[in-house]
């Protein structure tokens, strides 16, 4: 665990940069987290996914996998990869300030 400062506020993150406490996240932090992860400006489409990730986390206690994310959000897997290259589930979770979606075993 370590700390980071986003939008002027200190938050706790794990070794991979995921929020330890989703309650510390605020909307103003998302663009900074995105920039840090190498993403450009967040479009409304990005926001749709980020909002959805937080909703799923609040409901189920974990972020969805890419496939579940695509099926329930209506954004195709292809587009999810265009929006969040290299792993939409992980990257969107990071920007949404929720823990890394737990892997299936």
């Amino acid at each position: 665990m370590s700390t980071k400062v986003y939008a002027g506020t200190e938050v706790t993150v794990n070794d991979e940069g995921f929020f330890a406490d989703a309650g510390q996240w605020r909307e103003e932090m998302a663009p900074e987290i995105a920039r840090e992860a190498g993403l450009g400006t967040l479009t409304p489409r990005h926001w749709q996914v980020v909002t959805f990730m937080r909703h799923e986390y609040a409901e189920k206690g974990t972020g969805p996998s890419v496939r579940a994310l695509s099926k329930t959000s209506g954004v195709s897997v292809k587009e999810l990869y265009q929006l969040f290259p290299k792993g939409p589930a992980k990257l969107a979770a990071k920007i949404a300030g929720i823990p890394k979606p737990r892997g299936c075993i």
Partner: protein
Amino acid sequence: MAGGPAPADAVTVMQRVVILGGGTAGTLTANRLRRELGGRAAVTVVDRDGDHWYQPGLLFVPFGRARPAKLVRSRARQLRPGIGYHQSAAEHVDIAERRVHLENGAILPYDVLVIATGAALLPGETDGLAEAMARGKAFTFYEPGGAAALRDALAAFDGGRIAINVVDMPIKCPVAPIEFAFLADWYFRKRGIRDRVELTLVTPLDGAFTRPVASRELGGLLEDRHIGLITEFNTGEVDGDGGRLVSFDGREVGFDLAVVVPVHGGQAYVSRSPGLGDALGFVPTDERTLQSKASPDIFVIGDAADLRASKAGSVAHFEGEILVRNIRGFLAGDPLAGSYDGHANCFIESGSGKALLIDFNYDTEPLAGRFPGPVGLPLLTESRLNHLGKLAFQQFYWHMLLPGRDVPGLATAMPRAGKRFSAAADTQTVLTGSPRDE
């Protein structure tokens, strides 16, 4: 609305338990219930076909080490006398009316419903995969026909690139693709052409396996055998004619023959039953009580559940005792006392007549040591003894696991004795865990 258990004045009426699925989980549940409840409940098992496959055996079919005909038995004959068997696919579950509608038109009312219909293979979810399979460019050993077709394709293969590709998680038996790679290495060495065959495991995970200690150990074994490992590869397309796997982020892996584990989902009737399943057709389930989140009178066991436990027969076996205790509690109007800890174990065949054994649960990752206690089988290390254990497991499956017998020395909760906790990033458990099995 499906409410609580039957009122006290209804105890003389026989309670109806309907079990959807006559595979590993459904069969062992039915047999346990029948043994424990006797004539106090009418237990009915429903399945769409009559063949019960010993699925762990499919891994050996492509290498000529198991014959499909030896792996299959009658579903109905694995059930104890007194258990009803109904052969039809399920159409949908009416949760509010507590009824299952079958495709043959029958309607089965229930007091308790058990969902044990496992996971379905969905090759159609991946662009090009169904076509590549139809044209003999890609194979899956996860079903009997595919395993037999792959045996013939491997026999005719005398050099080139074989990609072993897991399209997405979750899958049944998550170690099977790794075992396939080990056995393929051994198979081609015995044929004397290993130097002409390039083997690569292509996985969406960030390592060979999901849990760090086992992932390191298995990754090392792959390296020893010169088996390539490509990680975080999310397959978007299988191009059979072009001989390449294409990931969603544009990476490519070439192949001459692809061994693909298709996307898994729940069975179609789950998605046709409003409120029952999630987006992938798995049934949201309480990970401790095994009660569905859809309704208190619906319980879930095995691969059909959305649990973070492995989709594996051992999980269904360990869940069985908990599930039956909770169904009995529910029918009697008592609180659900049974709590599943996520216990799973599996033999990992590593070739040359050796195997590893791993044993873990929700909170403890697979560790080195011995199972089930300090003088047991070696954990997380190759041994001939584990291979013999894997072979013996087939008899154990038909004669102990399916009948739902308790096995002396093999407890439902994961044993802690014998495991080397110090080696792991599991310090929480070490510091706070109670040595209940020691």
